[in-house]
């Protein structure tokens, strides 16, 4: 798999979520994603960026554009927060330990083609999503 470009963005505070949405939108558009596909990826990114801040205490987004054999975008959100004790439970719609709707993780997964999550208590959380063109 050929990596075309990579960049990292800090995801520490609320305004960073707006910035993440903007950059992901630009990257999707530059690859020629359809408007619906752009919207799905930007929405998934928005959910995960908010999780990174709310539950992870901030972190980093790595944005990669991929090419060959397939064209796509991979976003990896990594934080050094408290981690998720029960990932399976956290993925379930409606489950939240915060004040949200509990749709962030499960919803983001439905909006992308590939979804990976790794987390351990005390070891932070990394969520990676990929959407192919």
């Amino acid at each position, binding site marked *: 798999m050929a990596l075309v470009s990579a960049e990292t963005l800090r995801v520490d505070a*609320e*305004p960073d*979520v*707006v910035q993440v*949405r*903007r950059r992901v*939108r630009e990257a999707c558009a530059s690859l020629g994603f359809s*408007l*619906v596909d*752009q*919207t*799905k990826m*930007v*929405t998934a990114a*928005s*959910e995960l960026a*908010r999780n990174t801040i709310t539950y992870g205490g901030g972190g980093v987004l790595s944005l990669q554009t991929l090419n060959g054999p397939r064209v796509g975008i991979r976003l990896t959100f990594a934080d050094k927060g408290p981690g998720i004790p029960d990932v399976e439970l956290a993925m379930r*719609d409606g489950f939240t330990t915060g004040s*949200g*709707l509990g*749709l*962030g993780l*499960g*919803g*983001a997964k*439905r*909006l992308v083609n590939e979804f990976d999550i790794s987390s351990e208590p005390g070891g932070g959380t990394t969520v990676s999503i990929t959407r192919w063109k």
Partner: protein
Amino acid sequence: MGDFLLVTIQIDMHDRLAIALQDDLTNTISETEARGVLIDISSLEIVDSFIGRMLANIAAMARVLDAETVVVGMQPAVAITLVELGLSLPGVRTALNVDAGVEMLRASVDGTKGAYGTRLR
């Protein structure tokens, strides 16, 4: 617009701004005794779970203040994404555009007159 408030969201809001809008709007409904609220989101490129919750909250608070809320102008790509995300926007009525939203509000406000008598202003 008579008894209706029209709110047009024109920028990509961060979360605290969305909460501020929710609070401001609730106060304005109370101060103006508006019977209906139209929220035009045609400029919004995404509605994620936070913005969705804000819209549902506004509708719920408005209802307590005896006002109906209609969200108008949702882009098709946003609607498709919302459904896959799993957001159903409970209690939020939608219309394709501002004109259709005004019609909807007029109909529901007129419809409530019979039951409780015409409001005196």
